[in-house]
């Protein structure tokens, strides 16, 4: 039996699918981003994967959950590409994203965040060509590898700090 629940809600100028009543489902950050976009504030577009998906992650495990939401995430990513005019993982104007937590109750700094996600050799090259700003691109790359390495891959912060100190 396929799961037809909606797990992904888009937000961005005039396009927010979430609303203020959905705090439990979208978390505080997600709901307020949708809200701000509706109010006409300049919010970078994006999408929120629901707290229900998180519950399913713990019930079903990663593989089943990811199979369940893969289609929705891919389609939201596509909408995101369209609304920003950028492409995820490709030049000439590569889309990078932030991935952040957000529960219904505020828990500042307790859960994980990754910034500059989507950087690799190809997108870094494209970004350099686009901006001509080498410091910016390299700085973002360094941040991303450190953050992703730490948060997702579990490499101790100290390993990177140590290396940075040497330089």
């Amino acid at each position, binding site marked *: 039996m396929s799961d037809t629940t909606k797990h992904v809600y888009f937000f961005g100028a005039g396009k927010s699918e979430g609303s203020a009543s959905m705090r439990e489902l979208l978390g505080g*950050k997600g709901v307020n981003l949708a809200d701000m976009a509706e109010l006409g504030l300049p919010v970078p577009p994006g999408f929120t994967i629901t707290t229900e998906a998180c519950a399913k992650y713990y019930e079903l495990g990663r593989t089943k959950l990811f199979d369940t939401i893969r289609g929705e995430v891919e389609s939201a990513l596509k909408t995101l590409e369209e609304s920003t005019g950028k492409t995820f993982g490709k030049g000439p104007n590569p889309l990078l994203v932030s991935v952040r937590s957000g529960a219904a109750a505020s828990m500042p700094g307790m859960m994980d*965040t990754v910034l500059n*996600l989507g950087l690799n050799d190809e997108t870094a090259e494209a970004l350099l060509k686009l901006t001509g700003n080498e410091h910016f691109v390299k700085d973002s790359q360094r941040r991303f590898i450190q953050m992703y390495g730490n948060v997702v891959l579990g490499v101790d912060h100290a390993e990177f700090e140590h290396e940075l100190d040497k330089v």
Partner: protein
Amino acid sequence: MEKVIQEYLSIVEKKTGKPFPQDPVEQLWGGIESVFASWNNPRAVKYRELNDIRNLRGTAVNVQSMVYGNMGANSATGVAFSRDPSTGANDFFYGEYLINAQGEDVVAGIRTPQQISVDGSREWAKAHGVSEEERAKNFTSLEEIMPEIFAEFDGYREKLERHYKDMQDMEFTIENGKLYMLQTRGGKRTAAAAVRIATDLVNEGLIDEATAVMRVDPNQLDQLLHPVFKKGVEDEAEKSGKMILKGLNASPGAASGRVVFTAADAESWEKRGEKVILVRKETSPEDIAGMVAAQGILTATGGMTSHAAVVARGMGKCCVAGAGSLLIDYAEKVAKIAGKNIVLKEGDWISLNGSTGIVYAGELETEDPELVGAFSIIMDLADKFRHLGVRMNADTPGEAERGVRFGAEGIGLCRTEHMFFDNPSNPEGRTIAIRRLILVADTVKKLRQEYALTGSDEERADILERLKAPEEQYNAALEALLPLQRKDFVGILEALDGRPCTIRLLDPPLHEFMPHSKEGQEEMAKEMGLEVSEVKALVDSLHEFNPMLGHRGCRLGMSYPEVTAMQVRAICEAAIKVPGSRPEIMIPLVGDVKELTFQKEIALKTISAVELENSTKLDIKIGTMIEVPRAAITADKIAMEADFFSFGTNDLTQMGMGFSRDDAGRFIEEYVQAGIYEYDPFQVLDQEGIGGLVKIAAERGRMFKPDLKLGICGEHGGEPRSVEFCHRVGLNYVSCSPFRVPIARLAAAQAAIKEAQENKA
């Protein structure tokens, strides 16, 4: 930079055994999974536990297109509050930013962030000793560097506040001169800020009064009522490794002093002008004077309702209890901290934070909290909405005065046991009088029983002869205690200025009045002209296996009715001395109505006698505590004899759940973690079980006596969730320690507002 990147990549490969993922889609799923997984990381779990965040399904994941604050001098990132989160002031736009930076940099503390507004920037410079010239050059405000962006942002600030009708905490990024909003949420704030913002928002017409009352967390009010450490000194102490111990945050506030290990030392050191912290395994009523003398109390055992914790809260004194790793050696006057190479000697300075349970080495500076005007405005609003009365638990005129200042409408529980101990302000021989009484009480009782049973005149004469001396001592002790008790009651009734005062007759087991240490027993023997062995024998004879279920409460009054009569007489005579006073007599630990009938008869007889002697009329209500489960179940019968019930929920919890208050601390945490009970039932009333008993007693009691007055005087009377329960079951009042009175007032108002909103919906 390129070299660092290559090094980073090789670190990742070395540590994970795989090259850094190049595929963005793989990266994305990795990021999503790690956010989901972080919901249950130990840090997040602990945070939810500490902040009582329950019943949430998990975290959402927000995937958002990046904007870059690190694109150069025309880019920036920062955080801002729509009002000052520490004072609630709305003088300028509060916030910090960094040029050419990304998200985490502002909070990471690698670079010094700059202030958003010019006014904020100047204030910051002043506080940090930075000259205006240097500020304008190196710490320029956003308002000065990017005035147009600042104006745009300021507009959003106002728009968001109006939309959410609350103070906002916002994150923003400026990418190449364009502003983006990355987050907004209700800002965390201090209690002072919470009350100020709530009242300001009412004045600005953004929220109504009920909403303002709902906006302040009652538990947070604690912050406004006790001394606190000066800003920053705790961070400094922690950084320099002075955080040495953690226990339960038993009674809020901050205190610094020198370590002493006995109540007597606390008193004598204080007399010569020293600030002391009393460090004990656990305290007992003997230690009261030492606790009064100390700045704060630290104990190694005992929970939130241990003697130290309860008494300290009543006194408004800072207390950290149950610091299990503290190993005290009274003989050597040192305490070791298990697992750490730290020894506290007598005279060492330590500092306690009773609001967090943290203990620091050394002296940390404290200051009095500022009671801003908004605090009293919120309290007045709360009084407007609440139905539930709020009284205090107070045993001294000083406590009564403080409680009245905090808005208590009377005393719901006046414990008389502390009045039998000498203290610095009353060194009148109370302790010796009660000990004299106890010394012969049992003999007097037994001889009288013998006398009643015997038939022969000869034997009777012999018994009378043997009874003479002990009875004289017994009566003399009562006579000595009467004026002292009367004086105590006069002082309290005067402080109450016509407000009602429920006085509980003697409650604790008699051994609590005895010295248990060898020195104490020697001293008592000397004072009373006895052999030490006699004192020791007496103390041993008073030993009980389960004192909390032993010879205490009205059971004492059953054995020694003269004590009941003496206390009632003292109350009546005090009532005559203080015109307009409203004392009420409360019989403790009743299990069957006949106990109440018996004690009430003594009281009524005494009242009539005093009335006759003074040719006056007294209107003194007589009621009982409901703390034995049997009393709750038979409340209909008990109500026939009682003018009021007061639920003693500490004992009702102890007996109803079968948890010893003094032992439950060792395992109750496991029960809460396993989800068997949602909270420690000594802190938050177990509504289903013990609350069920309260409900049954209230219903059965009022069935026969609809105007039966109902109150609660356990520790729960000042705990917001329990207060809400009391409101819902229709009690007339809650009673709690003076320092929790404002909390109870606010919680009672919130309960009423919540109920009204539910009824509407």
